[in-house]
């Protein structure tokens, strides 16, 4: 199972919000997808990508819990890989430093 997330920064010109999107595929077909306007304003592409990846990992967690209860799936479950096309976002996700600027995006998951 793979997940892919992407975001585009400041797509809505009237309120400066970005759009995030993600899709999960299993066995060659898409099973879950969304494209949504983000609820908080991000200052950079990295931040908006970050919000997208957080939303995707939320969904990943749900899917993981569901598959966990279906006993067909091999146990213990392997991690769901989540792909993101932004280098900055990835490094931000790996480093656990809080610098006072990112409180609004501080919820994150370490699935990657």
């Amino acid at each position: 199972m793979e997940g892919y997330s992407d975001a585009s920064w400041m797509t809505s010109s009237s309120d400066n919000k970005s759009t995030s999107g993600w899709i999960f595929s299993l066995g060659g077909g898409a099973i879950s997808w969304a494209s949504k306007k983000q609820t908080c304003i991000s200052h950079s592409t990295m931040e908006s990508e970050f919000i997208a990846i957080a939303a995707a990992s939320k969904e990943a967690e749900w899917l993981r819990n569901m598959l966990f209860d279906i006993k067909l799936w091999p146990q213990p479950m392997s991690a769901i890989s989540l792909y993101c096309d932004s280098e900055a976002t990835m490094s931000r996700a790996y480093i656990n430093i809080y610098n006072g600027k990112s409180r609004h995006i501080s919820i994150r998951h370490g699935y990657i």
Partner: protein
Amino acid sequence: MKNVKNLEVIGSSEPRRSQRVRKEKHIDTDFISTDSIVFLVEGDRNTILKKTPMILNIEDDPKTFGQAMFSRDVAFWKEAVNDEMDSILSNNTWILVDLPPGSKPIGCKLVFKRKYNTDGSIQTFKARLVAKGFTQKEGVDYFDTYSPVARITSIRVLFALASIYKLYVHQMDVKTAFLNGDLKEEVYMEQPEGFILPENEEKVCKLVKSLYGLKQAPKQWHEKFDKAILLNGFHHNGVDKCMYSKFTKDFGVIICLYVDDMLIFSTNIIGIVETKRYLKKHSNGYALNQSHYIEKMLDKFKHLNIKEANTPFDSSIKLSAYCDKAVAQLEYDSAIGKSYVCYALYKTRYSFCYMQVIKIYK
């Protein structure tokens, strides 16, 4: 800058409106109203009129019992009504009692509907007794109305799993599902028009089982199904309460419930047969009817698994090198769509993020 903004806020007393330009709706001369039924029939005017004369001189569905009894198709309607009343009475839906003082019975109504085949010919005549649930008061006649349904994503996940593990998939639907739910609240209903028992005109029906139109009907049905299925050793899925699974050493079964439709996934055919037998036994012998076989769909999946296909519209997914491998999205999608026709979801419409929209109507 800040001051200017503040002034603006104070100055504007009018409510905020959307900036979108409003357009007048343009109605064509050959505009077809939504009430009419439209069929596409091939051929010229004369042959069509000869072949299917009923298309053009069809009556509206009757609105009331009286209208039905005076319509041209009175025989069909009578049969449909008798059918419905039979199933209700054999189910012991109500008992006749005197109306206790201070309580008020809710009304009921027979709803008539013709069902059409795709070529415009009439398939069945249907009558259904519905309670006038809109007169029910919260806290008196009903307390809770919430009934969960399966999430669309979980259905898709199950289909994907079915393709990976070569599961059997069956679809079932429950006939008159809502009549199966037991009613906890005390609800009195007037006797249905045309079926008032002589010498009992003053009495009212005290509902024992739920009826279509009652606010709590979907909830009661779900509760009953839930109880029954858990007794048989099924377990809830942790995240989707409408998914039940049971794994024994012989077989594994997963059931996905969507109001009165259910999908049964199983590792082998024994599991499905066992499950069906249990459900049939449990629902007083009349709940479940025919099942559609959608193994054809699984065949399609199988061939999908070995096929390498590159899809022209996958630009969004090509974030990594992986996706050259068998992302036959279109076929997957059509397979899902096909099964949904069987599944008869209520007016589902899902857009496939970027490229296609599949519309299925019940």
